[in-house]
């Protein structure tokens, strides 16, 4: 089983092996089977962050309730960025080609509909991350993806409470 990716979940905390910048082995998409998966997950995570930012930008009253979830997704994006072979490379590449998450996001005018849209996005994220967990070659990377999926499952519950008020 490959375990090449370093998977930090917080600053200074690495789940498997040395951090990329300390490794004597230069990582690339050719040698690490999880890099393509990581970039796929990073793109989806950044799109989710963009959606939350657009929703709290339009509905200021939701800002406080959504803050923990938005912060969690930002932490996911940071952890994925730290795990990438060249820090920030995926984000830069997506920016150059105008990738997912860069365009304007259409946010429903009604607050409750905006929350429902977030809940739908979280359900999809939980499902996609579960599939990514199954596909990951590295056990440590799979663990991080499974945890992110669980966080999205929690977010669905949080959004249910926010939408029910």
């Amino acid at each position, binding site marked *: *089983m490959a375990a090449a990716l370093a998977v930090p979940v917080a600053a200074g905390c690495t789940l498997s092996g040395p951090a990329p910048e300390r490794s004597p082995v230069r990582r690339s998409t050719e040698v690490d089977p999880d890099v393509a998966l990581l970039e796929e997950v990073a793109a989806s995570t950044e799109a989710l962050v963009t959606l939350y930012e657009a929703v709290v930008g339009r509905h200021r009253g939701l800002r406080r309730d959504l803050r923990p979830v938005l912060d969690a997704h930002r932490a*996911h994006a940071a952890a994925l960025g730290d795990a990438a072979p060249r820090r920030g490379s995926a984000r830069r590449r997506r920016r150059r080609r105008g990738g997912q998450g860069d365009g304007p996001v259409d946010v429903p005018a009604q607050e409750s509909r905006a929350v429902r849209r977030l809940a739908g996005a979280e359900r999809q994220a939980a499902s996609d991350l579960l599939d990514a*967990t199954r596909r990951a070659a590295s056990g440590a990377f799979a663990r991080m993806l499974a945890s992110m999926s669980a966080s999205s499952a929690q977010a669905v519950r949080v959004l249910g409470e926010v939408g029910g008020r």
Partner: protein
Amino acid sequence: MSDETEQSDQTDALQSALAAEHAAVYAYGVVGGVLGATSAPANAAYAAHRGRRDQLMAMIGGEAVAAEPAYELPFAVPGPGRAQQLGVRVEQRCAEVYADVVSRTSGPPRVFAARALADCAVRGLDWGGDFEAFPGLRGR
């Protein structure tokens, strides 16, 4: 890692999850005893952990670890508040164990563990636990 070693590690990981589920079933017996037989959350949690326990026993087969006669709880549970806290603690512990199982397995056992991790995370929230960016990875 050889296929044989990998298989052995996978079985060890599932055994640790089974041991955690045995303890969870015991703990929810205590929680249900305090909250009462009509407590829907306690009954649902008890049933969920019994279900995972039975699935793990089927996956492991004849070598499955047995439950201990009794377990030492992390704190006394004299009333509903402590019972809810015990629910949070049980779900956090099981989430950590399942996160570890995810890292040590592949294929259907890994998916099983990932689903169980998410269930534990949501149930912990329902008991009053915190929303987390990385459920199951506490302390890592």
